[in-house]
């Protein structure tokens, strides 16, 4: 009985809107890290400009959601170009340092009072998503059977659109990566000098990869803003990038379906860990809350994710679907 409810909850999480957001962000990251070997650890920045592009267009300039989504994607592309110019000619770790800083600085700038006329500061922007639900063709009701419960018609619509976007992006990545363009990206990942000596403009290819993956990150942000019906700066903290990495490396970097599989498993396990830890704490055989206070469950769960990322990277950097020989980067 209990197990069924837990399974049902895990299913709800694994296919739900947050898992979809992270799957999209990880698909973008897969183009950076999995296929091109670019160490972007500020994927949250792309997600954030996507979400805020939509939110500001709608809230401040009174544009439609469609225009807002395009603005969000456009801003993600712009951010990618701005990041690419100073860093991509340098060693891999310069991109890492710059991207992690950009992610955090964007968050701080967005929540500052100087930016409040555009971003409404730390409170964020609410009231998004109305026109999206107005398009919903699904009749009202609760959907699902047995342990596979999806929820109301609004949630089903959100999930359907989300998985359609994931399918579309996977198709795009699959088509691009089997083209000559994708082969150049993988060649750059394997041996940049070799690619250069064959006359390929490595800088330009890297920039294109950063832009494409960033735009998919921006799409994740647009979707996130709609599913949360708003944006607030402090939700875009470094954890988002970190989850995207765990998802990608769990599923298999450099594989079309790696991020999708990773997101399904990660979200089910992540939410499952929450249930297990809470129970363990309440039942008294690991009374984390009594020992450490109310933040204990969340903190333990995140520390565990950090440990998982380390262990995965050390013992199985190719994840579930990948090929180890491909993922020994920078050796």
């Amino acid at each position: 009985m209990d197990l069924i409810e837990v399974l049902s909850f895990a299913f709800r999480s694994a296919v739900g809107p947050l898992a979809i957001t992270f799957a999209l962000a990880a698909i973008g990251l897969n183009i950076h890290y999995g296929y091109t070997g670019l160490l972007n650890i500020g994927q949250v920045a792309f997600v954030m400009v996507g979400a805020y592009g939509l939110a500001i267009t709608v809230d401040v300039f009174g544009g439609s959601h469609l225009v807002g989504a395009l603005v969000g994607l456009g801003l993600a592309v712009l951010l990618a170009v701005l990041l690419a110019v100073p860093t991509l000619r340098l060693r891999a770790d310069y991109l890492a340092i710059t991207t992690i800083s950009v992610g955090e600085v964007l968050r701080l700038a967005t929540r500052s009072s100087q930016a409040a006329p555009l971003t409404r500061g730390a409170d964020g922007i609410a009231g998004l998503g109305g026109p999206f639900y107005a398009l919903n063709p699904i009749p009202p009701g609760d959907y699902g059977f047995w342990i596979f419960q999806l929820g109301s018609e609004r949630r089903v619509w959100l999930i359907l659109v989300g998985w359609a976007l994931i399918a579309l992006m996977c198709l795009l990545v699959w088509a691009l990566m089997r083209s000559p363009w994708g082969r150049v990206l993988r060649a750059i990942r394997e041996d940049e000098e070799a690619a250069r000596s064959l006359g390929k403009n490595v800088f330009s290819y890297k920039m294109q990869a950063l832009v494409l993956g960033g735009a998919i990150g921006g799409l994740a942000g647009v979707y996130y803003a709609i599913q949360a019906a708003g944006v607030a700066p402090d939700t875009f903290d470094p954890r988002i990038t970190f989850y995207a990495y765990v998802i990608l490396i769990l599923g298999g970097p450099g594989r079309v379906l790696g991020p999708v599989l990773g997101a399904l498993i990660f979200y089910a396990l992540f939410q499952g860990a929450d249930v297990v830890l809470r129970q363990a704490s309440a039942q008294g055989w690991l009374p984390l809350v009594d020992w450490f206070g109310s933040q204990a469950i969340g903190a333990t769960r995140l520390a565990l994710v950090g440990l998982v990322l380390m262990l995965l990277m050390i013992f199985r950097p190719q994840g579930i679907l990948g090929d180890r020989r491909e993922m020994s980067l920078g050796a």
Partner: protein
Amino acid sequence: MSGEHPAVRRGRPAPLLVTGVVALLLALVAPVLLAVPAWAEGDEALTGTLQVDGDPVEGVRVEVTDADGETVAEETSDADGQLEIALPGPGTYDATLDVDTLPDDVVLRDPDRATISPDVSPGATRPLAFPLADADAEEEVASAIPWSRLAQGTVNGVKLGLLIGMASIGLSLVFGTTRLINFAHGEMVTFGAVVAWMLHMTGFELPLIAATLLAIIAGGALGAGMEKGLWHPLRSRRFGIIQMLVVSIGLSFLLRYLIQLVYGTQRQTYADFAISTTVSLGPFRTTTRDLLIMAISILVLTGVGLMLTRTRIGKAMRAVADNRDLAESSGIDVGRVILIVWVLGGALAALGGVFVGASEEVTWIMGFRLLLLMFAGVILGGIGTAFGALVGSMVVGLGVEISAVWLGGQLKYVWALAVLILVLLVRPQGILGVRERVG
């Protein structure tokens, strides 16, 4: 998505390793755990202190209205400038300061901020901050250059630069000798600050100096533990740079949230340093506490500089950073040098953490915030060079604090990022760096 869920009676035990880690941490911090803040429902309140340059402002009226515009509370600041306004319940309120009740020589720093709208959650006490200023000083702001705040920014900037410099020597030396950018370095800073806080403020109640010394030792041990337990084995298995970077990101999250687990999300200061006298040197005003911090930082940094240039081990460090293979073939024990670099870096990071905690506050995220400034400083100065890290850190520290005079405190990190990107565009090897390292 993580609300209340049904019971899992068939749940498996947590992995052995995790239980071990938790048990170890528990043994270390058992005395702390009793002091969990109480959570009282229905005690919503707003509190604040009205003051100008440390002097309380009495008799100022603040009116609180709820979402419907109804006045729910009204309070006048007492002789200490204190305001305590009890609220009828959670919700969003507008707190308005009655400007007419301010003394003649006192004005709001930002005239548009006479009303603030705190969002009060159940049981919460929210701070009310009305930044006030001396009316005469305000005239100075109106003139082109605010000299006194600039002087203050310079003092703060020197202090911040010294702290960044001290904390980032380890980051830079580790990169120089092993080519690893350690994203967990920020957590080594937090670790030092939190260890000192626990020894000083809970259970043991050691004086801050003793607690700091123990925190430095713990920081060195943490550095040695990371090198012996993680990085050395990974290097001998020929892990690539990118793989090691991702491992260090995982490690930084592991440490960051272990610290949050044990220490919590509170903001705390050290009791020994809570009271401090103001010292004036011409236009520069500082406190005895900050002077002490700066003096010790300069001493420590001079000591490190002398060690790097004059001692055998210091020269060996620079040799390994310069050309590892050449150093190894000329008889230097590279493994030992790297271990010492980690111990030194961990100890300096811990000391830097205590100082940041003493001059600001101790939080679980403080090291990550500082890490971004350290990156900017290290890259500006030239990555892999110990002196470059110091030069770059001073520039970043001064820039951050002086820019805050015009931009305000919220945007000071933006400046650091701008520096970072500009340096990468113009001179990626940094001020003191060598070109061949960056390509």
